[in-house]
């Protein structure tokens, strides 16, 4: 135990003295600062962008209504669909009203705004179902039916519980910062930082030649392996947690802590806690508090970070090269983007591919066929296998 502590301490010295690690850590801090500015900017521009979007959507709906009127007037055989007319009328009217709201948002108007939003969203789902509006157009507007369904559920919850929403979804505060970190590609970027920091923990010494000093000290290879692995896991988790906490505290001091009980919509329990494919339940949601959402998200992120580090370490030992490991890992991450873009959300590949689980927001919200519990199980299983293989090679390899 004392020997392990000594080895971990020397790993820490090497980690902090590494020029590459210092640069990467500075980049990580820069990235988090950039993220804060990005959300501040989004928050500031939210109302003008929404106003513009609503104006365009209202214009499009009115234009289509006019076309139908012209066709009805000038084409003899043309039969208008009354449902489509009603859909366009609601879309035009709700968009105009929302445009007015975003032009001069008032805190007291939040109930009215949520009701308006729900009317518009329900109408859009109806329109998409009846092919009055295409799914691709909704997706491009960031109004995919799944997202609309989630938003409706959230709005209803807020109305029922008389909970005041944030005026802008990008409103920055401590809790919101934590949720933003789980959104979109942010978890992936945190994982990329972990990969870059852990990629040379074993092979760096081999390529630098310092293994001739370190591995000839009176410590068994087994101890060296476990100390390196434990150290990098420990350092990265502590560094990530500390940085996130520091940002959370600073942001909370400037913008306030935020609401831990604010509702979040996630996938139904059947999807989350499942070890089998549950395609039929996709699109079924439930509401939980933001604190619950954050716990789920960060547990999955923690497992993803651990697996990514173990995967990186194992590949570097098995391949015997930092550059080739970097190439392979980059390839796998790119593959994740390819799958995300081209795979159907019901695809079984999403279910089995560990990389699918790196899109934490999609997994928790039950938007893709990738169940939360299975993700953690696959991650743990894969991590154990990779660790065992790389351990075997490391302790018996000639240097």
């Amino acid at each position: 135990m004392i020997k392990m502590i000594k080895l971990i301490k020397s790993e820490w010295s090497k980690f902090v003295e590494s020029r590459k690690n210092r640069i990467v850590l500075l980049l990580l801090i820069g990235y988090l600062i950039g993220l804060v500015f990005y959300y501040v900017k989004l928050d500031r521009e939210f109302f003008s962008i929404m106003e513009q979007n609503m104006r365009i959507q209202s214009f499009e709906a009115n234009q289509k209504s006019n076309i139908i009127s012209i066709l009805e007037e000038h084409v003899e055989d043309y039969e208008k669909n009354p449902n489509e007319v009603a859909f366009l009328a609601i879309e035009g009217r709700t968009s105009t009203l929302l445009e007015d709201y975003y032009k001069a948002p008032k805190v007291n108007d939040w109930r009215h705004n949520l009701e308006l939003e729900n009317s518009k969203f329900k109408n859009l789902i109806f329109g998409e179902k009846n092919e009055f509006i295409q799914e691709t157009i909704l997706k491009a507007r960031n109004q995919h039916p799944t997202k609309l369904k989630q938003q409706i559920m959230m709005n209803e919850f807020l109305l029922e519980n008389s909970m005041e929403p944030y005026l802008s979804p990008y409103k920055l505060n401590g809790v919101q910062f934590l949720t933003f970190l789980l959104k979109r590609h942010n978890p992936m970027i945190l994982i990329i930082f972990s990969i870059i920091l852990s990629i040379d923990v074993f092979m760096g010494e081999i390529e630098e030649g310092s293994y001739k000093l370190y591995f000839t000290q009176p410590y068994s290879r087994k101890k060296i392996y476990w100390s390196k692995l434990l150290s990098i896991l420990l350092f990265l988790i502590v560094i990530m947690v500390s940085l996130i906490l520091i940002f959370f505290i600073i942001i909370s001091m400037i913008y306030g802590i935020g609401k831990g009980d604010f509702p979040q919509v996630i996938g139904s329990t059947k999807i989350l806690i499942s070890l089998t494919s549950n395609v039929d339940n996709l699109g079924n949601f439930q509401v939980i508090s933001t604190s619950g959402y954050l716990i789920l998200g960060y547990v999955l992120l923690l497992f993803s970070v651990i697996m990514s580090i173990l995967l990186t370490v194992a590949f570097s030992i098995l391949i015997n090269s930092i550059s080739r490991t970097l190439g392979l890992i980059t390839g796998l991450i790119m593959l994740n983007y390819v799958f995300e873009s081209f795979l159907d959300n019901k695809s079984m590949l999403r279910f089995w591919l560990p990389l699918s689980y790196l899109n934490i927001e999609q997994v928790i919200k039950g938007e893709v066929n990738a169940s939360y519990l299975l993700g953690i199980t696959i991650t743990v299983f894969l991590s154990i296998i990779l660790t065992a293989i790389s351990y075997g090679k490391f302790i018996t390899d000639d240097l």
Partner: protein
Amino acid sequence: MNNKYVVVVENLNKTYGKRHILKDVSFKISHNEIVGFIGPNGAGKSTTMKCLCNLVIPDSGKIQICDVDLFKEKEKALSYQASLIETPGLYLDMTGRKNIHLISKMRDITKERVKEIEDFIGLRDKLDIKVSQYSMGMKQRLGLGIALLSKPKFLILDEPTNGLDPNGIIDLRNTLQQLIKDEDISILFSSHQLGEVEKLADRIICINNGKIIETPEVISERFSYILQLSDLEKARPIIESIIDKEKIQYISLDNVKVSLENQKLLSELLSELLEKGILILDINKAEIDIESVYQQVYGDKND
């Protein structure tokens, strides 16, 4: 330590694929002995040395360092030895001082010893610059200093003169000679340069094609001296009491050739002779014919 040997290597074998790199390599190194290890490129010198410091795991065989089996009690055996394999393995992003401190903390070295080694390395203020900016000579000194931190009983030096300029080689040789005087240590060092090995080593082990080969006679007789004495008859029993009879050759009435195992025996012999009132009229050291040694060790082809 019960055994008089610091290192015992027995029947070491190592194969890489179909290539048999080490074939039953066996040798012993005594207490305070400086052993040179020579052989052509690819002969198995580095592999043998890497086996001794746990970088290469042999297929079979036995290695004992200070009576401790390296494969059974790895950590204990390694604690008796230190090594400098090829170019010194150092952390280039760290300063020289931080490299020293890293290892000193791992091995519980006292502050006094660290200070001693810093003085021994002699790089002074250069210890606080990054190792990446060091010359090869500075790296060698630092590497050697770090190796000596733990006062090892056995030091492995693989091609320590590689990459050094002539001044660096002289400096290293002086350092090693000083080390032999100051520290209670046995050294195994390899080199291509027989001249270097010959100057430092008490004994030379030759390896070729993964096999330890018989040390050429000229090497084993490299501490041969022709002494001209005032009274050879009177000196005869004294010489024979110190040196084996087969290593004594009476050349003429006042000349005798003696082959010694090491240079220390010469001092012993000379002081005995002087004590008994025998005058030493002349001493000549028999020179080694390096070319003939190369031919015997490396064969006709330098493979």
